[in-house]
């Protein structure tokens, strides 16, 4: 480093010498200057003083008190900015946990949730890390924006110049550069809530509401977190989302409170770029592209999914695709093991099509602009910090050398800019022998080859600061003796010095370069060839994995001829009947139908039914339980619908068209449901029903009492407590609602809002329930608060209180034959559905299981065996009845003119064990087709084989590989807890 401090604080005393003030200028002349990526000066001068740019251009007047650096032929770029870093801020350590979960906050005077810490400031923990700074400087960075990477609200960040020569008084550019957020809990607290992403989202929403309430002076108590949050409000808000799906989730939270987050993505944004673009957010994009898997072991390789293989192949194209879609983004070293990997990954992105202009913007003006610092960093405009790189040429060319990285006017030498390139061929003679020496290799890692009498001698070379040291073996190959040379390089690249023979004799040495090696040019040609060899990127499918669609299937006009039609209506089962589907609806049912625009499907011998509806599913969700509190009415599964879940496709193959994704049963008051159609390939938002009926999951019994695992600290621990919990919440919700309706000021509470919807009959409860006592209890609680329970789900002892259920008007959605897996299902019987049905209760058979859901037709058929339900009624248990329970029977659940064309064509009687779904259609779009499925299988096999082949090639080329890990998807049930 070469530092000459320019900006000492002038009111500081000085005791180690005289006060020195440097008012000189530095001028770098004859260089190509990238003032910005688009404003380029050929052969200009850059004039700097006091760590800032004074002027640039071709006609700059150089003051007399200037140091002039002639850098003819070199290029100057603004140094890079890393906008997302934890530089100089130590990550907090994880707290040891107790035996029981912690539900309350550990602090007082702050927000009720420990993971909300807007009062944290990175500057308070900041320790300039010069070792790390060196790594970043070497990677081309001049400024980093750092923060405490811990918690959901992480407080303010610090913008710091990588200036190793001055102190924090100079290099700290902003102590409140941005506020940071994430979905991840702090390591410093064991407070259980939130235990899921949907919980984090709900917490953020409630926090914004509370901050507003606090800002208006409504709070009677002190809250330092909310005060800090309010004072950080005007800062840039940077959100660590970390994946395509979470990008959208973060954006959705922000939008509701008029906050546009800057979003740290995950590198998979390309998978649904349209949605990402629609966020209209500035993004920060990591470039930690995955290494190829080591696929030499065929057994292991066979466990890789097409999605894993594609990630390697497609992810490097992410920056290009973002740029092509005009999405504003900065690049970051975040998620890289070391800044050393930055350049090679960046070069890869460029190889995959990212333009060099965009790359430079993403590292300079974009991050500056995001931080509102365009005037001081990211460019070499007058007045900006003198943060720049001096290079041998195009900074994004592999062969280019970065010589120097100046930060705030302080020079950091990476490569000696004035070093003479001594590569070439030399001739010399020593003690009567003539030698030929080739010097080659990388400038900082030269290699030598010394020959004499056409024999190659073993040799070593080192070169620095115009001095070269060479050692080579003598002719005697047995003795292993060396001739050593030390020589100075002159301007003509001749080597002048002395040689030391094994005898100790010294003699003068002179070698003349006979031929210069134009390595750069030759190398460049090779590379060009490589570049023309454009990277082959696998096509993106929706979703981007096996069985995804390259192009989404379209709505069709379909005419089924001669089918056995299960109408679920008064007409019952119609033989030899035609059904016309048009504009996504059932258009006609009858004999001898025709429609010139329709694709005709011969359904002779086949059965056409309404699509199967699963009242209780946990597929297609990124999280299921928010168990961090005994009530989580504020969370919604709609926030975490996962449109990539392969179980969507598998359910379609079982004839399922609609499902309710229920929250789990971790707590008595669970979260809100998502009711979706299984439109495989569509975005999560498009899966959710339009004007969806509102539902919430409640739960009773062993799970909410936490009976079957070691947990003793959360109320309730008994069924007695469960009742009181409901009465407590509903009493408070009633009071809340009354206050709200009175027009008086009230603190908006998302949990109470949801419960008030139940009291106002706008939201329906589907309650996980087993034994008769608790079923009876909940109906009585509902009666007390003047509303009805909509559905008891599981309801395995429903048969014991079927008459009471009928009187209350609640439906039962049950398992066909599950029992004996815990104590509360000891009296569960497979005749439950039949008894409830016979008592007049609306009965559905549900799955709660991604395996069973794909053959709910079989589960319905068990009601014929157990209890003698008629086939027509049994079929309604998995179609019309769940539609009724979900309040969607006006749209789906039967084959009726005007209803949504959600139908299944079965190869056989739909209740038969021998039936397969041949086509599953939602709103006239064929989302599953047996024949198309066969074709996809072949295509998947081929593509996987191709990609594995490419990975083998990559390994053979010497590229890094990673060991294979087998991905598995957790099968989510009611009891699934995430932590």
């Amino acid at each position, binding site marked *: 480093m070469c530092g000459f401090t320019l900006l000492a604080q002038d009111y500081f005393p000085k005791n180690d010498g005289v006060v020195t003030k440097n008012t000189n200028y530095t001028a770098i002349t004859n260089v190509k200057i990238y003032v910005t990526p688009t404003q380029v000066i050929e052969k200009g001068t850059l004039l700097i003083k006091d760590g800032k740019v004074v002027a640039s251009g071709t006609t700059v007047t150089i003051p007399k008190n200037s140091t002039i650096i002639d850098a003819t032929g070199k290029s100057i770029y603004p140094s890079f900015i890393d906008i997302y870093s934890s530089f100089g801020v130590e990550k907090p350590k994880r707290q040891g946990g107790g035996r029981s979960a912690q539900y309350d906050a550990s602090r007082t005077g702050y927000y009720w949730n420990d993971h909300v810490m807007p009062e944290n400031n990175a500057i308070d923990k900041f320790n300039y890390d010069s070792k790390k700074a060196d790594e970043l400087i070497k990677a081309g960075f001049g400024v980093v924006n750092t923060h405490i990477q811990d918690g959901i609200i992480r407080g303010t960040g610090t913008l710091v110049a990588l200036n190793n020569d001055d102190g924090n008084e100079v290099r700290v550019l902003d102590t409140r550069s941005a506020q940071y957020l994430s979905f991840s809990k702090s390591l410093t607290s064991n407070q259980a809530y939130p235990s899921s992403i949907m919980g984090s989202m709900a917490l953020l929403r409630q926090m914004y509401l509370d901050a507003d309430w606090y800002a208006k002076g409504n709070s009677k108590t002190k809250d330092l977190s909310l005060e800090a949050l309010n004072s950080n409000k005007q800062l840039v808000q940077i959100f660590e989302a970390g994946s395509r799906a979470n990008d959208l989730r973060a954006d959705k939270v922000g939008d509701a409170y008029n906050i546009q987050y800057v979003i740290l993505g995950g590198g998979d944004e390309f998978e649904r770029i349209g949605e990402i673009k629609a966020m209209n957010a500035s993004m920060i994009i990591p470039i930690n592209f995955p290494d190829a898997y080591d696929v030499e072991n065929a057994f292991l390789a066979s466990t890789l999914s097409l999605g894993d293989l594609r990630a390697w192949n497609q992810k490097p194209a992410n920056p290009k695709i973002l740029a092509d879609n005009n999405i504003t983004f900065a690049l970051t070293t975040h998620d890289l093991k070391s800044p050393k990997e930055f350049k090679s990954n960046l070069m890869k992105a460029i190889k995959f099509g990212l333009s060099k202009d965009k790359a430079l913007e993403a590292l300079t003006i974009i991050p500056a602009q995001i931080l509102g610092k365009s005037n001081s960093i990211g460019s070499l405009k007058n007045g900006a910090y003198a943060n720049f790189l001096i290079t041998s040429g195009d900074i994004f060319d592999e062969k280019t050398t970065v010589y120097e990285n100046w930060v705030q006017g302080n020079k950091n030498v990476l490569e000696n800019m004035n070093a003479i390139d001594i590569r070439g061929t030399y001739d010399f003679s020593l003690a009567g022998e003539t030698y030929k020496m080739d010097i080659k290799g990388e400038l900082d890692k030269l290699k030598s080859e010394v020959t004499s009498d056409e024999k190659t001698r073993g040799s070593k070379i080192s070169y620095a600061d115009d001095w070269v040291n060479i050692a080579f073996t003598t002719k005697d190959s047995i003795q292993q003796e060396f001739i050593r040379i030390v020589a100075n390089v002159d301007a003509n690249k001749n080597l002048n010095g002395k040689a030391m023979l094994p005898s100790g004799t010294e003699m003068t040495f002179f070698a003349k370069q006979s031929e210069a090696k134009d390595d750069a040019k030759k190398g460049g040609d090779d590379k060009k060839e490589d570049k023309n060899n454009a990277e082959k990127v696998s096509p993106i499918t929706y979703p981007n994995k096996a069985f995804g669609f390259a192009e989404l299937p379209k709505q069709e006009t379909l005419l089924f001829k001669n089918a056995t039609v299960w109408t679920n209506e008064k007409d019952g089962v119609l033989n030899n009947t035609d059904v016309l589907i048009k504009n996504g609806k059932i258009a006609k049912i009858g004999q001898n139908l025709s429609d010139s625009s329709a694709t005709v499907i011969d359904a002779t011998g086949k059965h056409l039914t309404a699509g199967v509806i699963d009242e209780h599913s946990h597929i297609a969700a990124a999280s299921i339980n928010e168990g961090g509190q005994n009530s989580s009415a504020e969370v919604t599964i709609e926030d975490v619908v996962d449109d990539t879940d392969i179980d969507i496709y*598998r359910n379609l193959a079982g004839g399922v068209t609609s499902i309710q994704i229920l929250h789990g049963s971790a707590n008595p008051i669970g979260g809100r449901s998502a009711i979706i159609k299984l439109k495989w390939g569509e975005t999560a938002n498009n899966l959710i029903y339009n004007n969806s009926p509102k539902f919430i999951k409640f739960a009773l019994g062993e799970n909410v009492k936490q009976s079957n695992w070691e947990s003793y600290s959360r109320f309730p621990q008994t069924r007695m407590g469960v009742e009181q919990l409901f009465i407590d919440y509903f009493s408070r919700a009633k009071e809340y609602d009354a206050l709200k309706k009175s027009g008086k000021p009230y603190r908006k509470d998302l949990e109470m809002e949801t419960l008030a919807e139940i009291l106002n009959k706008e939201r329906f409860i589907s309650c996980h329930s087993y034994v008769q006592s608790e079923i009876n209890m909940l109906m009585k609680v509902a009666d007390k608060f003047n509303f009805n329970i909509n559905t008891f789900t599981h309801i395995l002892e429903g048969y014991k209180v079927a008459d009471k259920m009928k009187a209350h008007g609640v439906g039962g959605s049950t398992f066909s034959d599950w029992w004996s897996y815990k104590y509360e299902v000891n009296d569960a019987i497979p005749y439950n559905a039949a008894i409830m049905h016979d008592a007049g209760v609306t009965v559905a058979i549900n799955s709660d299981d991604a395996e069973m859901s*794909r053959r709910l037709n079989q589960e319905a*058929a068990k009601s014929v065996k157990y209890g003698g339900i008629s086939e027509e009624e049994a079929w309604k248990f998995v179609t019309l009845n769940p539609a009724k329970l979900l309040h969607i029977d006006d749209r789906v659940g039967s084959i009726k003119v005007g209803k949504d064309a959600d139908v299944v064509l079965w190869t056989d009687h739909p209740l038969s064990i021998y039936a397969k779904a041949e086509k599953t259609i939602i709103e006239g779009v064929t989302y599953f087709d047996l024949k198309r*499925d066969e074709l996809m299988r072949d295509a998947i096999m081929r593509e996987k084989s191709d990609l594995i082949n490419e990975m083998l090639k990559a390994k053979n080329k010497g590229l890094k590989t990673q060991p294979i890990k087998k991905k598995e998807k957790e099968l989510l049930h009611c009891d699934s807890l995430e932590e």
Partner: protein
Amino acid sequence: MKNLKLLILTLLCTSISLAQQTPASKQTKTIAIMGATAHIGNGDVIPNSVVIFKDGKIVTVADATVIKMDMSDMEIINANGKHVYPGFIVPNSTLGLVEIDAVRATDDDAEIGNFNPHIRSIIAYNAESKVVESMRPNGVLLGQITPRGGRISGTSSIAQFDAWNWEDATVKADDGIHMNWPSSFTRGRWWLGEDPGLKANDKYSEQVNEVTAFFNESKAYADGDKTTTNLPYKACKGLFDGTQKLYIHADDEKGITDAINFAKENKVKSMVIVGGAEAYKVASLLKQNNIPVLLQRVHLRPNAEDDDYDLPYKMAKLLVDKGVLVGLEVSGQMERMNARNLPFYAGTTVAHGLTKEQALQLITSNTAKILGIDDMYGTLENGKNATLFISEGDALDMRTNILTHAFIDGRLISLETHQTELWQRYDNKYKSKQ
């Protein structure tokens, strides 16, 4: 619908008791089932059959339109339009070892320790389990009661499902030893901050070596003077003299291949692959070595994201087509209560390629052969035990798997259960209100 219910009600015991069903007493009178479609269990069907059994053994299985005999001493069951099947057999089951999954006190299926061939399942078998009795109304009448856990879990026995106690229940004691082959993958220890996903098991060879060493020691022990007893080594004797089978639970292609080689090298006389999720990939090897497979539960999700959606449904077909002897097993989540769905697992394989009679073999004759009880069970053939049932219709389909009679060793067993009793009690409660 009502008639059907009444019929079933009358067929079942009329008195409601809270205890378990009383085991049936010995067959005293010769019984002839007339007119049913007989599914022999070996692939054959006799549409209008006569099935006669005496003293617990089948004496006649014939075409009723052909055969003529004096039936005056026999109890005749008219089964016109009905179907008669050999009792279904559920192998690799923990029935009777656990009553309620979540209640640890009822859980007796896995012992601690790694090499437990001396651990015997049958002595913990609860003959009065409510779960076991719920098998019978679905035609599942026999099971291989199998311990879990460790590298060598222990020794299984085969039981019939209508017994006073485990001794009564036993039809073949200590039929085989169950070993869990080392997995090719291990799970990251998430509590140590590792990725919880699966990665290649770098201890695989070490674990295989442990198994090999254990077998070598057991063989050496068998040849020695045995003055000092070593229970685990002693328990392995049957594997080498051919009196016991080695059931190797293995799922992946490589594991199965290694297991086959291991058994050959160690002179194991008779081995069976249990689970066999990827057995279809090595079907030819299995066939070549005459190694049967007790195939994993049919109603499963595919293991890998890219797998065909119907892979678990069609696995049996893939193996049967290659000539491998296949039986269906049911282990996994909620395996005990789900064991009564065994016929429907078989039924599902029909939708995915097998014939109905082939599917039936997967839960009758094939399983009996694999377990080594085919001299007594698995088909409706002369000389075999009269363990069979009559169903209103196709017993592989839920709608028609409705039993009217079931016999174990000729004894007419109760088809009532804890569940049917509750059904009747509450059905009557509402009916009497009306």
